[in-house]
Each structure stands twice: as C-alpha cells, then as structure tokens.
C-alpha cells in the first residue's frame, strides 16, 4: 500500500471527520481535523498500523495547534493529524486514554504551551521546575522573559544539616 492508497482508506473510513487532506510529497500527508474529532482520528490511525512518533505544538494567535505525527513504517509514509485547541479554553481530548505512549508528550505540551488535555490519566507537571508558577507558559508567543523572575529557589544560609567537626585544614 502506498501513500495514496492509505489516504483513500482513511477517506473511506473516516469521511467527514477529516476536514482537509494535504499531500505534501510522496511520504507526507497532513490531515486537518476539528478538535471534537481528534480522538477518533487518532484512534483510527493508531489501530491501523500507525506508530505515534511524537506530537508537536505551535502557538498560533487564537489557538494552539497540536500535531500528532504517525509513522507507517512499512509504507514509508508519515501522516500528521493537525488539531486546534482554541483559546482561551485551549482544551483537547487526550490521546493518552487510547494508548499510553502519548502520556509524556501531552504533559510536555501542557506544561510549555498550556493546551489542556481532557481525561489525561496523569496530568501532572512534567518538565518545568517544581516552583515554576502556574499559568505561565514559556513557549507561548506572549511570554515575556524579562518580566518573569527566573532565579527560582535558593538554598538558605542555614539550610545545611551537617556539622563540621574538625578543622584540620585551618590548623
């Protein structure tokens, strides 16, 4: 099966769920999908042989675009599902409910871009520091670096829990 046959199969099975199909070249297909259909399309691609390589996110002005990239290795084709999380709510259905491989990448997008994934099995913070303030998303276009104090928590002078016994080096 090659790219065109795969696209025709997707068209047949998913039909109206896919808003737009863009064939970039012999190996790449981009499917644009509305947010309410994203879970169904992702599930379909996963169940029909696609391997989630990664997911990426971009902050467009009024929405956050989240792309899931599926590799169909025997066919040498990569299919990308582009969905939008419209601001200000920025909500999307979590694909991690379908397969656990999407767990960490969705947490990362959530940390850095602020796209909320509904029903995520483990929506904890992943890669930002523990004391990073909530609601500040560094990879958004309106993130101001200077306005944000970046030094974080320091160890206090009497934080040490040790007693220095001998001072041979001073003697």
């Amino acid at each position, binding site marked *: 099966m090659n790219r065109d046959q795969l696209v025709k199969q997707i068209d047949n099975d998913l039909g109206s769920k896919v808003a737009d199909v863009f064939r970039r070249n012999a190996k790449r297909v981009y499917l644009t999908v509305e947010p309410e259909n994203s879970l169904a399309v992702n599930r379909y691609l996963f169940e029909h042989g696609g391997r989630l390589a990664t997911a990426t996110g971009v902050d467009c002005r009024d929405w956050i675009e989240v792309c899931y990239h599926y590799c169909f290795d025997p066919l040498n084709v990569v299919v990308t599902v582009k969905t939008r999380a419209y601001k200000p709510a920025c909500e999307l259905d979590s694909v991690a409910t379908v397969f656990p491989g999407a767990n960490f990448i969705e947490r990362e997008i959530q940390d850095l871009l602020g796209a909320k994934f509904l029903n995520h099995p483990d929506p904890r913070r992943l890669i930002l520091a523990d004391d990073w303030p909530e609601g500040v998303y560094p990879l958004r276009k309106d993130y101001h670096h200077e306005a944000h104090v970046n030094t974080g928590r320091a160890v206090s002078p009497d934080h040490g*829990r*040790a*007693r*220095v*016994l*001998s*001072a*041979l*080096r001073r003697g």
Partner: protein
Amino acid sequence: MMNLGAMIGVLLVAFAGTLVLGLAMKWVDRKVTAMVQWRVGPPWYQPIADVAKLLGKETIVPQNARRTGFLLAPVVGFAAVAVAAAILWGANLNPRASFVGDLIVVLYLLTIPSLAVVVGGAASSNPHGAVGASREMKLILSYELPLVLAMVPAMIAGGWTLRLGDIMTTPSPSVWTSAAMALGFVVCLLCVQAKLGLVPFDMAEAETEIMGGAYVEYSGAPLAVIYLTRAMMLAVMPILLVTVLWGGFHFDTVGGAIASVLKYVLVIVVTVLVRNTNPRVRIDHAMKFFWFGLTPLAVLAVVLALVGSTP
C-alpha cells in the same frame, strides 16, 4: 608470656609493617588493574598521597547521624585489624609463641571491620548507607561460614589443633597434593574476595549504584581511617590464607623467603585479576553462591580431610 612493653612493641611493629604492606598492596592493586586495562597506573606513592589528602580535609558529620557510632566504627575496625595483624605476624615469625585458639581469635577479630562497616553505614542516617549496611550484613552472613569451614582441613592436618603455630610447623599435606587442602584454598580465596569487598562482591560499597553505600557520608579523617583499614585488610587476609592453608611464611632460609614472597604476591595478583574480570553480582546471587555453592564445597573439603586423616 611477654611483658607489657614487649607486647606493645610487637603490636606497634606489626601495625606499622602491615600499614606499609597494605599501602604497597593497594598500589599493586591499582597498578595491576591499570595494566589489565592497558593503562599506565598511578605512581608508587599514590596510596600515601590519598591518605595525606584525606587527613587534610574537614570531617563532616550529618546532623541526623548517630555521632558516636558514626565516628567510632572506623576506629574500632582499624584497631581490630591491627591486633589481628600482630597475632598473625607473631605466629609466622615465632611459631612457638602462638597460643591455643589464636586462629579463633584472628578470625573473630577479622569480622570486626566488616561489622564496623555495617555500624558506620547504619549510623549515617542516609538511605544509601542503610542499603549498603544491609547488603554488608547479608554478605557477612553468607561468607563467614565457608571461610571458617575451609580452614578446618588445615586444622585437621595440623593435628586437630587450633594453634597457628602448630598448623605451620606440623608437616601437613600441601595444597598441591591434597584435594582437601586445595578445595579449602579455593573456597577460602573466594570468601576472601568477599571479605575484602572486591568485585564481584563489592555490592556493599557499590560505587556506581548506591553512591558509596555504607561509606557515603564519610569524609576527611574517618574516611582516611576506613581507607587504611581496607588497605590493612588487603594485606592481612592473604597472610591469613597463606599461613593457614598454604604452609605459612618461612624466612629462615633464602629459598623459603623467596617462596613466601611469591606465594603472597600470587594470592594478591589472583585477587586483583578476579576483581578486574568480573562484574558485580546482586546480593541475592551472592548469598545463593555462598550458601549453596561454597558451603557444600567447604563441607566436602572437611569430609575429605577427615577421610584422609583416619587411615
């Protein structure tokens, strides 16, 4: 019976001699390791530099640690090795002066450094220290039995005696001709590897795994004492092995002296080569190895010795 002055003199001379020998053997260990790995190793004064540097660092005691146990454990271990070394040197240089049961005393004293590791690690108030201490405890329970059992053929061959002097002076079957002695020697060699805390049995101090295990919180002078204790154990355990199971050290003839030195160096080199060619094993593998592998072999050695001694 020696007077107090002579005893203290013997103790100090044995302590100093074993210290020098231990530091030299530590260098031999690192140099042979380097040669096996096609490297140039450290210079001959490296262990001395290590100790000098450690004595110049500050001693830090964690606030939640049990201070007395933490600081006293290395010293107690060090003292135990020093006394055991004195007894062994005394037995080798003057076999008539050894007392009944001195083999038992030496074996007993040589368990104390390992127990000191357990106490020190447990007193560190550090989870890594606790893991290291528990591993060392399990290891002690595993290798002590085959170690002692493997020495029984030598005791039997020396005429059912517990005196080191008798074991050395009684003409007994040598390790090359007697199956019991050879088996006992091999078992004892592997137990010595575990006692010294060398790979494949260094899981109590696993560097890459538990950040130094029982030694994780030590620094400065206590760490220097631990370093010296391990150096002296490295010197003393082969002395014990050769004394009990391989005929001892005889410095009265030139040939005997050369043979003694060669025996000792051979044991050290075999230990270092085993250390460099094996990975570290898990603690449960080590326990199975000692309980189900070496202990039956040691029992077999005892049985062979019994059979051989009652014609």
